[in-house]
């Protein structure tokens, strides 16, 4: 079975909510929309206090080419344009909307009917995706339309759909595949048409045999879409790892991107959002979110309107357990620990994971015994022990030469370290610093 070649680890899967069908979560009392929910320039608010909005009304305009507009997920009145602490832990500008009723914008097709015919040109599809604010829904939130317009000199040959969901605990993508397979396949063919490619792959890890079976069966009508079962290994959902696993091509070091080797990678949730945007005229304002954790009484998958506070999801999944000591936005390997439960669900929120006191605690760091397990685990072929030490010593020149910028921050090194060293903390510090140095150097040129 296919997988990526270098490194990787096997965290316990803990897919507690895999058997739970997607439920629609009730409306929040107030929805909060941070203006930077994507990589790139923040969106600019186009509503002000007192404005009345509907479900699907555009409330913020894209702030540039690498940016995305934001749409209201609720109907009601704008309470204020202020700031909020989002999943990153920083205070960011945000629009607060008080919910009144549930009135949708006209032009959104709310029926469940499957639409498969599309007469739009590739350019029109890209424009629709762009105008619907669709971004990568796996977590990085890279605006979808940017990936569909490769930089000069690069030519796309295939679209690879990331349905790996290699993060432990998360099941949102898995449930989506089981419940909306036809829609996803239409979405994939739209992406292929938009990118002007003839071949599409959907990479699914082997721990989701039901999804592989279902999509293989449904994709019989699509001769150019291939379902690729992949061996379970983290971080297979990393873009470069997925391209390596599916089409056996290795993306070179940054600034190269997957399209440099002909691949456009999109998340399976993104494919679904593209279907809804193009075929149903529905902008991106809701998504499937997994709420999970061992202490939670009822781990679930919720179709959630953006802007809903995480506390509401936790309450719907059985309430906040007494022993909660850490709330993580996303999965346990790359997710971010949150400051509080009021953080709103954004475009990239794939899950909410609650950890108890024992799970949340980090073990004490011990001396490095140079066992090289981090070197064996690194999917990018780096030497994490060395990068961490260089970062500790602030040797920025050397750490750049050791390719710190190639680190994808997957955490495999720290996961595997017998000495429980905080390798990724140090490597991130080095990476951020070197990133700044490189930007300053390029600015001078």
């Amino acid at each position: 079975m296919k997988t990526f070649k270098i490194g990787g680890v096997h965290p316990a899967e803990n897919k507690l909510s895999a058997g739970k069908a997607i439920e629609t979560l009730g409306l929040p009392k107030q929805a909060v929309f941070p203006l930077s929910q994507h990589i790139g320039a923040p969106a600019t608010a186009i509503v002000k206090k007192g404005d009345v909005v509907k479900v699907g009304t555009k409330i913020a305009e894209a702030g540039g080419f690498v940016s995305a507009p934001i749409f209201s997920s609720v109907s009601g009145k704008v309470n204020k344009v202020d700031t909020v602490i989002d999943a990153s832990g920083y205070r960011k500008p945000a629009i607060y909307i008080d919910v009144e009723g549930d009135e949708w914008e006209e032009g959104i097709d709310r029926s469940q009917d499957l639409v498969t015919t599309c007469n739009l040109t590739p350019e029109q599809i890209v424009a629709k995706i762009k105008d619907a604010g669709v971004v990568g829904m796996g977590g990085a939130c890279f605006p979808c339309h940017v990936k569909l317009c490769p930089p000069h000199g690069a030519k796309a040959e295939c679209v690879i759909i990331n349905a790996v969901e290699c993060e432990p605990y998360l099941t949102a993508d898995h449930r989506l595949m089981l419940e909306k397979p036809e829609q996803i396949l239409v979405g994939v063919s739209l992406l292929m048409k938009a990118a002007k490619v003839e071949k599409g792959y959907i990479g699914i890890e082997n721990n989701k045999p039901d999804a592989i079976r279902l999509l293989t069966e449904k994709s019989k009508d699509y001769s150019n879409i291939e379902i690729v079962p992949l061996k379970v290994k983290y971080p297979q959902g990393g873009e470069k790892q997925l391209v390596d696993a599916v089409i056996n091509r290795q993306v070179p070091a940054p600034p190269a991107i997957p399209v440099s080797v002909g691949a456009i990678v999109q998340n399976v949730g993104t494919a679904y959002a593209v279907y809804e945007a193009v075929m149903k005229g529905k902008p991106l304002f809701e998504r499937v979110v997994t709420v999970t954790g061992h202490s939670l009484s009822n781990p679930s998958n919720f179709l959630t309107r953006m802007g809903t506070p995480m506390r509401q999801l936790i309450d719907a999944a059985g309430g906040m357990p007494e022993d909660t000591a850490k709330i993580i936005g996303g999965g346990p390997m790359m997710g971010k620990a949150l400051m509080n439960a009021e953080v709103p669900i954004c475009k990239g929120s794939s899950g909410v994971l609650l950890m108890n006191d024992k799970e949340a605690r980090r073990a004490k760091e011990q001396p490095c015994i140079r066992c090289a397990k981090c070197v064996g685990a690194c999917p990018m072929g780096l030497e994490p022990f060395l990068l961490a030490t260089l970062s500790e010593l602030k040797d920025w020149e050397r750490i750049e030469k050791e390719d710190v910028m190639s680190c994808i921050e997957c955490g495999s090194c720290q996961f595997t370290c017998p000495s429980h060293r905080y390798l990724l903390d140090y490597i991130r510090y080095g990476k951020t610093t070197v990133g700044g140095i490189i930007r300053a150097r390029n600015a001078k040129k």
Partner: protein
Amino acid sequence: MANKLTVSLSPHVHGGDSIQRNMYGVLIALVPALLVSLYMFGLGALIVTLTSVAACLFFEWAITKFILKRGCSTLCDGSAAITGVLLAFNVPSNLPIWLIIIGALVAIGIGKMTFGGLGCNPFNPALVGRIFLLISFPVQMTTWPVAGQLLAYTDVNTAATPLALMQQGHLSDLPDTLSLFLGNNAGSLGEISALALLLGGAYLLWKKVITWHIPVSILATVFVFAGIMWMVDPAGYASPLVHLFTGGLMLGAIFMATDYVTSPMTHKGQIIYGVCIGFLTVLIRLFGAYPEGMSFAIFIMNAFTPLINTYCKPKRFGEVVKK
């Protein structure tokens, strides 16, 4: 939820591996060899091993507490106990207690703690102790008791090791290969049974404490190099199988050369390291002044480990091979 939330960076889970798990894995893997040595050398093996482990633990504790003035966090991790067992395995079973204690002091004190303790030593501590004893007390370190004297300790009949016989040119006096493999011959107390050591090695591989690269590259090199010499002159040189099953080769290849701290980080580096160790071992055995070269070979290659680490980088993802 009155308690405060922990906010830390990802990853938020850990694989559960620990220094202890690896170190105790090595100790478990050393048990078969210990049982064979108890069966062959009886009381002497027991006294030497217990003294060595106790002395190593004591020096680790004392130096951490009184000289480095740190908490004793590394005492229970098993690393000092491994040094103790390996030191004992590398000496004859009739070595007097005071010599073992000196060996342990040199191993832990000079070999390990001088450099800052666990993870910082450039040389395998047990080897430092062993080589110090061998050079300083050559007579005691090279009188090997004959196996089977279970209740004797220092007052035993002694015999030459197979390697000493080889060096003196008495090839016809060598024990047969099967008894070499099983361990029925004279030698340091832990090195005699290739079978027991291989069992331990299999356990380490199964538990993923070590990878195959270092042991296999050492054993293969010794086999090939000794085999070439044997084919050139079967009367002058012992067969490659004899080389594999005698002396400290198995013990060194499986347990000493694979020491995490002092071996290279990448698989490529580990193979270079292993091949060089195997080559140096046979070179010393056949042409050197000492009958056994394993300790020296590992010791020399330990010194090259930083250099190997500098030049043997793992292959970066997406790296284009320059032509």
